[in-house]
């Protein structure tokens, strides 16, 4: 019943990339309702109007740099022509309503739409109510929905996360906000023991449709404890799903998908990405929690990334394209489980893999991803998988040192050059 729709990623301040399509128009394939980003233009059935509406995707051809918004509108799909149908799709796109907003506003929009749709959806966390959220994701919601629905909790992460789990077991759909992802380390007991396990140990009797979200990642000189990446710590917990958003478009879509999911989902946001601006469709859309996003198709090498590193990669991609390389960039989005199909198709095409992540080197998402790709696609690889991760060091305060702990575009460029020799 839900209408799922893939819109277009517009030009963002960080890079020139947009979500790209492949050549063909495809009907939604294996997924019941969800439609893959990488599948290209998509048909969406609206149950009310029985209209066929399709979204086209902007295509970034090699050498094509930043476009102005007006240029966007004039772009046709050039690879593989569609003729009249292509023109039809393009005209639809011009007529299709969009609005521009920042990433934290997109999160709020998704949250608000879900709260409007289902009265059991509630938010709990520190300063989410009257203060509006420390990153303003829940601004205005307490005034609209009341203090019980947008609950300001005392500073007791373990207990209010457990409270969220108890509420989820008894019929509500809570969203627990960690003011900073690092604070959720205090809630690790509840997340690991209860969130992940109770559905199983109760023999399937209780579901825990909880969303745990918050900003993590290395910011601007926030110090070691506020710059943590918890995705590596949580990834072994059976029974939870983890997703990381990187653009306003996928932030809203993933937020909505996470809230609607019956599984417990941890949504990783990034402190530095909250002010990203993008145009997103007015129409309602929900993304799939298990799928990866094709950011830029290419032929020479597959670059897998997520969250903030996507932008470092796209910046490096500009340089690489100038040097004549054609990288395929995939934002894996789903950190647990991995979308091995999208990744696999890409590996089979390019035979070289570079993983760029912000996690620590040891035991990070990249390490798991390397293992998964080696296990499944070893025969297709022409070179060993290279994984660029952050240094195994508590993030220093000094700006220069902090810069050197995370992967920078220059390192990505030289890694690609080395791999593609």
């Amino acid at each position, binding site marked *: 019943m839900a209408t799922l729709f893939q819109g277009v990623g517009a030009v963002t301040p960080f890079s020139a990339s947009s979500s790209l399509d492949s050549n063909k128009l495809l009907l939604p394939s*294996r997924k019941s309702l969800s439609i893959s980003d990488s599948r290209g233009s998509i048909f969406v059935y609206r149950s009310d109007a029985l209209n066929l509406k399709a979204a086209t995707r902007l295509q970034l051809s090699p050498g094509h740099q930043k476009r102005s918004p007006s240029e966007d509108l004039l772009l046709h799909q050039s690879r593989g022509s569609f003729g009249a149908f292509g023109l039809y799709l393009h005209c639809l796109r011009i007529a299709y309503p969009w609005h521009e907003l920042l990433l934290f506003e997109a999160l709020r929009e998704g949250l608000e739409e879900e709260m409007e749709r289902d009265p059991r959806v509630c938010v709990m966390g520190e300063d989410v109510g009257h203060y509006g959220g420390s990153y303003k994701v829940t601004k205005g919601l307490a005034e609209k929905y009341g203090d019980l629905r947008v609950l300001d909790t005392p500073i007791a992460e373990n207990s209010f996360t*457990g409270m969220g*789990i108890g*509420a989820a077991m008894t019929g509500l759909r809570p969203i627990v906000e960690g003011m900073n992802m690092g604070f959720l380390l205090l809630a690790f007991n509840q997340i690991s023991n*209860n969130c992940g396990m109770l559905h199983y*140990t*109760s023999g399937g*009797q209780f579901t825990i449709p909880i969303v745990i979200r918050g900003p993590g990642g290395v910011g601007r000189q926030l110090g070691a404890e506020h710059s943590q990446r918890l995705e590596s710590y949580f990834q072994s917990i059976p029974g939870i*799903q983890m997703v990381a958003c990187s653009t306003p478009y996928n932030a809203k879509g993933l937020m909505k998908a996470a809230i609607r999911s019956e599984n417990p989902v941890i949504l990783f946001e990034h402190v530095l990405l909250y002010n990203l601006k993008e145009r997103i469709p007015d129409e309602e859309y929900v993304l799939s929690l298990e799928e990866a996003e094709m950011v830029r198709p290419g032929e020479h090498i597959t670059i897998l990334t997520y969250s903030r590193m996507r932008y470092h990669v796209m910046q490096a991609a500009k340089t690489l394209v100038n040097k004549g390389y054609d990288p395929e960039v995939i934002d894996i989005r789903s950190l647990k489980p991995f979308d091995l199909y999208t990744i696999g198709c890409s590996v089979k095409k390019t035979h070289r893999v570079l993983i760029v992540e912000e996690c620590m080197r040891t035991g990070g998402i990249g390490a798991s991803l390397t293992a998964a790709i080696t296990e499944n696609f070893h025969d297709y690889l022409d070179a060993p998988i290279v994984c660029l991760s952050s240094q195994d060091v508590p993030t220093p305060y000094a700006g220069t040192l902090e810069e050197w702990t995370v992967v920078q575009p220059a390192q990505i460029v030289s890694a690609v050059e080395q791999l593609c020799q």
Partner: protein
Amino acid sequence: MSLSATKFVHPITTPPSTRSSDKPLFSTFFGSNHTKLRFNKPIVAAQRRSSSAASTSSPVVAVSDVVKEKKLKSASNLLITKEEGLVLYEDMILGRFFEDMCAQMYYRGKMFGFVHLYNGQEAVSTGFIKFLKKEDYVVSTYRDHVHALSKGVPAREVMSELFGKATGCCRGQGGSMHMFSKQFNLLGGFAFIGEGIPVATGAAFSSKYRREVLKEPGADEVTLAFFGDGTCNNGQFYECLNMAALWKLPIVFVVENNLWAIGMSHLRATSDPQIWKKGPAFGMPGIHVDGMDVLKVREVAKEAIERARRGEGPTLVECETYRFRGHSLADPDELRDPAEKAHYAGRDPITALKKYLFDNKLASEQELKAIDKKIEELLDDAVEFADESPLPPRSQLLENVFADPKGFGIGPDGKYRCEDPKFTQGTAHV
């Protein structure tokens, strides 16, 4: 406290005493200013002996005191009716016999792992849970078999769960320490202490939410959180006391203070051993009650549960109780003083209730023996059922990991992994 060379001895009369043999059986409690548990009169030992029980409408008295006075009271002065008495007796006998059967089965190799038995503490479970409606929630710890039985989970299902069979209440996936029942609103069964208290707080929050946000009429479910004395030194306990009192959640925190956390005496672990005092520090009434006396527990439970149901907020009830067996079936229980064990064995809640029923002519020997027999047969049937039940098949391995099995993700072939029916058997690599 005298320390001998080989073991720690706790003479019963050591101050500061939390044990009821030294002080009035019902201590005055300090509620917060605006909330008071409604009792007719504060009961003080001296007063009780002089005045007759008939002068107050429903006094809270010790079972042993009533017996001592040897006064035949009319039925209207009794705390329970015959039917209620038999229900209480049956529930406590079920708990006791079930736990004894568990021990037998464990030593016969039918169940494994950590099994924690509840012998001696039945009055707390029966006293509280028999006041609940089916929709009310119970959250327990690893010592949860009897809470499950009192709440209504059939003995068959609990026994098969312990045997690890597919017909167990959690399909054999939970075990002794993780009893859950959606039908009877038993929210677990938690292995780490203190872990269940936030979950209970969440269930109470859910209840309040349904009443105030969703405006559901009759959404007044109460949650009971059971936990022990060791848990009362844990952060989650205090965090939840704070939140429950802050938002006036419909929850009752029931502390089963059996004085021992495995081998750690409560007095050695706690700076102020009087747990009930911690309630008023957070703005809720704190009550200390004799947990070996089911009638007293019942009186306190009634007030606390009704207070929560009215929306007046949480209560902290400390039940002084004792476990007759070791911490678990793996515990040799050599540390506790035999004199202490003998003292509490003399205060066995089942014996006390039996005496009350006989002395007040509420039940005859035959009726109680008939109940005993009925429970024994029930348990034999439960064991037989569990024995004959099938073990979980391999296909059950990954079935309940996710409520929405799409969470296993998309495999290299493009299909969701859960679309392959063999997937739930598990693979060498996911």
